[in-house]
C-alpha cells in the first residue's frame, strides 16, 4: 500500500528511513525539498510529529516587546532596523517599556518576548534594568529575550565574555533566548545580505554557551530570498549537530522572508508550497529538536493552521503587538485571541495545549 502515499517514488527510500527511525542524510533533505509531492512530504513529517506529540498543538499566551529598532547591522532583508537618527528609528525608554508591561498586567501572560536591534550606544545597564524592572512587575512571567546576535553584541560592547554576559542577564531575570538572527548559515548569502552580522560560528557559539549555562534557546532560519536548497539543508544540519552537542534548543522556527519595505523588495518571498515543505523538511531533518513552530504572524493564521498537518506542533502565541514582521508588510492581524487560536487548532484536528516558554502545560 505504501506507494499510494506518494506520487513521487523518490520519497520511498526516505519513507523507509522514517519508519525505521533512521537519521536522514543531506541528500534525503534535498530529495524532500525538491519533491513535487507536497502531500507526500507532509505525510512523512506528520509521522514524526505524531510520534513526538500525538495530536497536541501548542500555543502560548505571550507579549512581544521590540524595545528599539536602532541597529548597526543594516541587513538587506530587514524592514525593521534603522540607523541611529534615521527617520522611523525609535528606542523605548525603560519607563515606556514598563508602561507597556503594566498595561497588560491583568492578562494571564506567561512569557514576554523581547527582541530589538544591535544598538550602538545603549549601556549594558539598560538591558539589565529592563529585565529587572519587568521581572519586578511580573515575577511569574518568563522573559525570553535577546537573540544570539544581540547577546554577542552586548558582550562586545561590555567587553565581557559571552558566558559572563549571559550570566549577568540571567541574574537580572533572563529565562531563555529566542531563536532569531540565525538567517542562513551560508557565507555566500551572508556576504551579500548581512556582512556586518554575527557569523554562523558566533551565532551557534552563543546559543551553545547559553545551553551550557542551562539556558534554553530557540533557532530559526530565514528562507525564501537568495539561498539555495543546499544552503537550507546545510543550515538545518548545522543546527542538528549543535543540538547533538548541547541539547538546549527547544524549537525551530523557519521564518518566511517578507520582501516588502526591504532592500530586496524585488523578490517575491516564498510560495505556500515552499512554506509547507520547509516546515515539513525541518521536522524530518531536525530529529533532535522537540518542537517545530509556525509563527502565525509571519505565515498568517490560515497557513499556520494548515502547517499543523505538515509537521508543525506549535503556532506561537496570542501576540498582541509585533513590529518586525509588520514593518515588512505582513497583512496578518496584530493579535489572535485564545479562543481563536484554540478554534483554528481544533479545526485542524489537533488538541490545543496552552504551554509556557519551556513547553510545560498551563492550565488555561
Amino acid at each position, binding site marked *: 500500500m505504501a506507494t499510494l502515499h506518494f506520487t513521487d517514488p523518490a520519497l520511498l527510500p526516505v519513507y523507509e528511513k522514517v519508519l525505521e527511525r533512521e537519521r536522514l542524510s543531506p541528500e534525503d533533505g534535498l530529495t524532500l525539498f525538491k519533491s513535487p509531492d507536497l*502531500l507526500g512530504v507532509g505525510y512523512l513529517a506528520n509521522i514524526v510529529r505524531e510520534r513526538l506529540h500525538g495530536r497536541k498543538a501548542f500555543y502560548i499566551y505571550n507579549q512581544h516587546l521590540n524595545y528599539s529598532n536602532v541597529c548597526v547591522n543594516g541587513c538587506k532583508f530587514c524592514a525593521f532596523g534603522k540607523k541611529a537618527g534615521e527617520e522611523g528609528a525609535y528606542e523605548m525608554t525603560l519607563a515606556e517599556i514598563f508602561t507597556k508591561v503594566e498595561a497588560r498586567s491583568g492578562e494571564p501572560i506567561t512569557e514576554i518576548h523581547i527582541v530589538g536591534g544591535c544598538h550602538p550606544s545603549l549601556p549594558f545597564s539598560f538591558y539589565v534594568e529592563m529585565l529587572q524592572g519587568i521581572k519586578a512587575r511580573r515575577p511569574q512571567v518568563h522573559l525570553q529575550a535577546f537573540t544570539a546576535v544581540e547577546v554577542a553584541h552586548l558582550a562586545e560592547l561590555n567587553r565581557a565574555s559571552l558566558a559572563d554576559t549571559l550570566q549577568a542577564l540571567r541574574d537580572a531575570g533572563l529565562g531563555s533566548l529566542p531563536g532569531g538572527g540565525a538567517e542562513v548559515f551560508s557565507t555566500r548569502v551572508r556576504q551579500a545580505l548581512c556582512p556586518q552580522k554575527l557569523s554562523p560560528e558566533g551565532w551557534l557559539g552563543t546559543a551553545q554557551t547559553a545551553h551550557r549555562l542551562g539556558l534554553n534557546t530557540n533557532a530559526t532560519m530565514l528562507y525564501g530570498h537568495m539561498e539555495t536548497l543546499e544552503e537550507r539543508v546545510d543550515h538545518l544540519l548545522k543546527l542538528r549537530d549543535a543540538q547533538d552537542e548541547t541539547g538546549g534548543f527547544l524549537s525551530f522556527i523557519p521564518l518566511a522572508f517578507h520582501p516588502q519595505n526591504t532592500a530586496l523588495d524585488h523578490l517575491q518571498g516564498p510560495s505556500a508550497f515552499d512554506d509547507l515543505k520547509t516546515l515539513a523538511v525541518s521536522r524530518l531533518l531536525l530529529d533532535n529538536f522537540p518542537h517545530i513552530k509556525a509563527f502565525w504572524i509571519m505565515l498568517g493564521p490560515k497557513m499556520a493552521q494548515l502547517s499543523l498537518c505538515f509537521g508543525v506542533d506549535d503556532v506561537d502565541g496570542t501576540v498582541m503587538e509585533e513590529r518586525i514582521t509588520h514593518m515588512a508588510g505582513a497583512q496578518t492581524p496584530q493579535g489572535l485571541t485564545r479562543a*481563536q487560536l484554540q478554534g483554528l487548532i481544533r479545526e485542524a484536528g489537533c488538541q490545543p495545549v496552552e504551554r509556557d516558554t519551556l513547553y510545560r502545560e498551563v492550565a488555561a
Partner: protein
Amino acid sequence: MREETASLEARLASGARLHEEEAQGLWELDLLTLGRWADLVRRRLHPEDRVTYVVDRNINYTNICTSGCRFCAFYRTQESPEGYVLEEDVLARKLVELKAQGGTGVLLQGGLNPDLPFAYYEELVRRIRGFGLGVHGFSPPEIAFMSRRFDLSLKEVLARLMEAGLTSIPGGGAEILVDRVRTQLSPRKGTSAQWLEVMAAAHELGLKTSATMMFGHLETRGERLEHLFKIRDLQDRTRGFLSFIPWTFQPGGTALGGEPLGAVEYLRTLAVSRLVLDNVPHLQVSWVTQGPKIAQVALKFGADDFGSTMLEENVVAATGVGFRLTQTEIETLVRQAGYEPRVRDHRYNLL
C-alpha cells in the same frame, strides 16, 4: 490504514463512484489522506499537469436587491442612498478596460432589482457582446426572479437571454441546497428545488453552467454532502455543469456574522467535493476568499482551475476580505506548484 479505508482507496483509484454512506466517512479521514485521494481523482480526470484560469471581471449591474440574505454584505435596499444601477458610460469604461487587458468575458451578476424592465437585461447582454466579450451571466435566483417578475417561463427567460447573446450561467446563489438552511439564511431567495430547476432548464437549452457552494455558516457537514449529491444527480441527467466552486462564508459586514472557517476545513471540503462530484469536470479554487497561498495548496486537494483574474470583484470585497491577484501572479502561483498555467474562456475552451 484501516481495512475499509484501504479498500475505499482502491475503489477510488479504479474510478468507482462513492455512495452517500461512504462519502459521510470521508470526514473522518485526516486532511492529507483526503488530499491524496482528491489528487488521485484529479489526475485521472486531468492527466496533463495544467491549471486553467479565465481573464475576466465581475460586473455587478445593480446592488439593489429584495432578497435580503443574511450572509450578504453587498446588497442595498430599494430605499438605500447607496443603491445603484450601473450607468452606461461606467459599463463601457469597464468593458474597454477589460478588453485592453486581454479579457474574454464578463461574469455578470446583480441583485434582484424590481425597478429593471426585462429589456434592460437583454440590452445589457447585447452591449457586452458588442465589445466582443462573452457573458457568463445571471445566476439562478436572477433567472427565477425574471421569470416571476415578467410572467415568463424559465425557458422563455433563458431563451430570450440566449438570443441576446448569453454564453453561459454562473453557479451563484446555490449557497447550501438544503431548505432547512435556506429558510434561515435566505428565506426570500427560493428553494433548492428552484435553483436546480433553473439549472436543469438551462442545461436542456444547451447552456453550460457552473455550480457553487457557500459553506461555513449554519449548515452541517452532512448538509454539504446533501448539496454535492443534488448537484451530482442533476449532472447525471443533464451533463450541463462544467465546474464546481466551493467557497467559505465571509462574515464581515453581514447580518449573520460569526467567525470564518479556516483553511483546513476549506481544503477538506474541496477534496470531498472532488471525490463526490465524479461527473463534474472542473473544480475551482477560491483565491478571493482563501488568499493566494491556500489557493495554491488547493491545487493538491483536487482543484484544477484557478478561477479568474477578476479585475473587479465587489461581493466578497464588501465583507472586508481584500485578496487581489494579477494575471502574472496567478501564473506564478500555478508554476510554483508545478503546473502549466493556461488561459481558458468561460466554457473551459483553452485559448
